[in-house]
């Protein structure tokens, strides 16, 4: 589904140039769950941001089911993003002024889904995420785990083809972290492609394939046998 070739990204400040991505090649098949790991500053978050069209690389190619995405303009990028992608962030990034229900509803509004259907979809996912009794609450009133579940729900409500998760368990304790990982696995099993950046090999063990980055290069790739066997 995703074909990334020779991706380059350089950060420039007045004094120094930092190469974040240095000719990355990466293919992701539909239905795959890929983890990206590596030390701090290896470029894994940059890669994820480029994949989410939140950042523009200097060179290379990024094809999403045969569509070249790097040549799109701003509006096309945001249109593509809202139709095909969902995001889960380390620090949840919920809008504080909106309730749980409204936070989840927001991407549907941007996708111009009619109100009655919106309500149905949001209620469905709230039930699935087990946060029904929280739907009228504001983010600050929830625990970290609950907030992340709301964030996952928001990422999923539009039924995106690709979910991008940036250290989704980074701000959670282990039990809440596991809950979120299990949620992602369930999601993956229903056919959603997931790309996740993580520091934790425990979290990575939930995925099909683990890619290791260092200094903007892919240095190794590992198929996660146990998980693949499970799949079979």
């Amino acid at each position: 589904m995703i074909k990334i070739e020779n991706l380059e990204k350089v950060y420039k400040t007045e004094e120094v140039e930092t190469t974040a991505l240095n000719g990355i090649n990466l293919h992701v098949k539909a239905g795959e769950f890929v983890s990206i790991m590596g030390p701090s500053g290896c470029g894994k978050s940059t890669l994820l941001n480029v994949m989410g069209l939140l950042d523009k690389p200097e060179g290379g190619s990024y094809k999403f089911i045969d569509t070249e995405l790097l040549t799109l303009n701003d509006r096309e990028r945001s249109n593509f993003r809202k139709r095909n992608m969902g995001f889960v962030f380390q620090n949840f990034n919920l809008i504080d002024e909106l309730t749980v229900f409204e936070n989840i509803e927001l991407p549907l509004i941007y996708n111009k889904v009619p109100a009655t259907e919106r309500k149905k979809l949001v209620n469905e996912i709230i039930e699935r995420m087990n946060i029904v009794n929280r739907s009228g609450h504001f983010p600050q009133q929830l625990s970290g785990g609950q907030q992340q579940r709301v964030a996952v729900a928001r990422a999923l409500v539009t039924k995106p083809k690709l979910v991008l998760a940036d250290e989704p368990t980074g701000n959670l304790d282990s039990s809440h972290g596991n809950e979120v990982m299990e949620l992602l696995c369930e999601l993956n099993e229903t056919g959603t492609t997931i790309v996740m950046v993580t520091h934790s090999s425990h979290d990575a063990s939930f995925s099909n394939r683990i890619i290791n980055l260092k200094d903007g290069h892919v240095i190794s790739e590992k198929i996660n046998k146990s998980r693949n066997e499970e799949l079979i």
Partner: protein
Amino acid sequence: MFKLNLKIALRNLWRNKGFSLINIGGLAIGLASCMILLLYVAYEWSYDKQFTDHDKTYVVYQNAVANGKTFSWAWTPNAMAPEVKEKIPGVKYASHSTYPNAKLITSGDKKLISTVIFADQSFVKILDYKFIKGNPDQVLKGINTIILTKSFAKKIFGNEDPINKTVTLDNQDVLKVEAVIDDVPANTSINFECLMPWALFEKKESWAKEKNWGSNICLTIVQLQDNKFFAEANADMKGIYKRNQKDKFTADALLHPLDKWHLYSDFENGKSVGGKIDQLKIFLMLAFCILLIACVNFMNLSTARSERRAKEVGIRKAIGSSRKSLISQFLLESVFITFISTILAFALVEISLSYFNNLLNIKLQIDYGNIKFWIALLALMLFAGFMAGSYPALYLSSFEPIKVLKGLKIRTDSSVSIRKILVVIQFVFAACLIVCTSVIYQQLKYAKNKPIGYDKSNLIQISVEGRMREESKLELLKTQLLKSGAASHVTTFSKDITENGNNTTGISWEGKNPNEIILFNNRGIGDNFIETIGTELVSGRVFSDKFPADTNSVMLNEAAVKMMRLKNPIGAIITWGGNTRLTNVGVVKDFVVESAYQKVAPMIFYSSRRDGAAVIIVRLNPNQNISSSLEKIDELVRETEPNYPVRRKFVDESFEAKFQNEKLLGTLSNWFGGFAIFISCLGLLGLALFMAEQRKKEISIRKVLGASTANILGLLNKDFIKLVAIANLIAFPLAYIIINKWLSAFEYRVPISVLPFVLALSISLIIAILTVSIQSVKVAKANPVDALKYE
């Protein structure tokens, strides 16, 4: 989406109550100030525009050259209107009327002094007043008839139908009420309560019957069939005096649009050069500036809070919002806040309007039934909302999602400098206003304290009415006033001493250049005039019973002597009106009857025995209680003429009216300048709040290293002091240019000193430091660990 955005806006407002209060309050005060000023401008602007064909209506002016200057005024001879109607092309109507005059109207035991006009039938055709009762085509035809305004009819007849009832004018003429019209609007130049036929005026004043071109006694109003005739008609008007007076014509005539009568009343060399419109432009600018300051405030505060909103922007962008929809969201938000502010502003306007009306002696009101008002209000609101929201919307929507979502601090350098520029702009306005206001007050004080040539305090004037005009009665009254102890001196004057009018160019003397035309004010004075008003006799003597020849004596003021270049003024022979040989017996020190800002004009005095006195001037006895003196005076006047209410006023109060324009300007710029400064302070408070927040960590580290609260305050204040100082530097030359232009209109003007500038600098600095310190003290005193432990 709309609903959701509105919810976010509301919750945001609620969560940051302090900020919201500053924001909405600032905007509301700005909008309210703007609304009041605009109401005032609209009020002045719509002067005389209530009539159907006001745009085709003109007032006849005459230009007369005298003292080397051209004087222009809307006084014309009684022959003007018929001549214009007959000879000037394209004229539909031409009317002659008197100017508004105070007269006694009685009915039964009701005695009312009313403002009246005598006019011909064309007058109500040109100025189509709204007739409530009576037929506009039939009025003013007879002689003994009268038209009343609604409120005057009510005053005199209560709720009875006034039609065909009678009233008495000056206790002489019994008049039948033939129509009732709606009250004349407050913003009209021709103000009256009763309208009577010109024929009645001619009957009462036989001298007015004779057609003549020499004495300017009427107001002539002309309506053209169409404005395409204007150029031709106006060109024809120019020579109208010459054609009719032939040998010794004194003036030109011109048509001045009725629409411009009020606002463009200043003439120079016979051409309209503005007038009140200049002041109106200042107010319009002030209204715009205050709104701008309020909007700038809003921008400042919204961008200062941007970091709180940055996350929201990031998330929205990440899940697919386009920049356009974010911009429209923020604009919607600012329009929404403006809407709340507008409602608040309404309340403020309604509360303060009666105060301003009292202060400025005008009748402003919000006309809720007028669709134009609502359109203007909507336009104002949207304008303010979009203007205030534009920069924050563009700025906030430009955030890059990954940066804000990663929790990185957004780089705020550029926005800080823009915010600084905005604060500088605000303080430029504020400093300008302080300088201008203080110079206006200086000028006002200077003009008021400038010696006017006589002592106006404890001096009262009583109108001479009815039987008081009889010489014996007047003399008796004067004696009684002195005897009663209420008055220390009493005299008479042929005109209200604080008003202009009655002048002549028909004076000549030996050695006069025959081509030179000098305009003299002429006044009749009674005995003891010099002592009563407290002026001085420079040379010669005053009129006296001891000199029976004084019927042929005149006196001059110093300005007249100077203008006439008389080396030996006493004994100089003067010809007035062609044949009378008069002798000058005394020279009086110059005293002001016209504008306190202009040089005193030449004045010639005659003994008021020759002509009736219009007022009795009384110097109150300083040893008596004023209120009991006044009571005594009223009683004596009433005894002499019981049919008229006593009309008495203090000279110093009447004199104050001369400063009405400048007082209005001073008061308004004081108030609205104050508001502008207040709003600017709110903006500064917001910025200080933001800066202190941003530098929390730096401040904490400094404190850990040993900085005192004072050090920190100094640190935070330094930046703002710099901004305000820069603003003052920009404001000074601007203010100098503006105020210099304003002052140049006055012949007597206060020199521009450094004081207003020092005042502006110190006021703005003190205010800025106070505002910033209130906020920074909190941060400076905070426990340093609070800011550091999260790092």
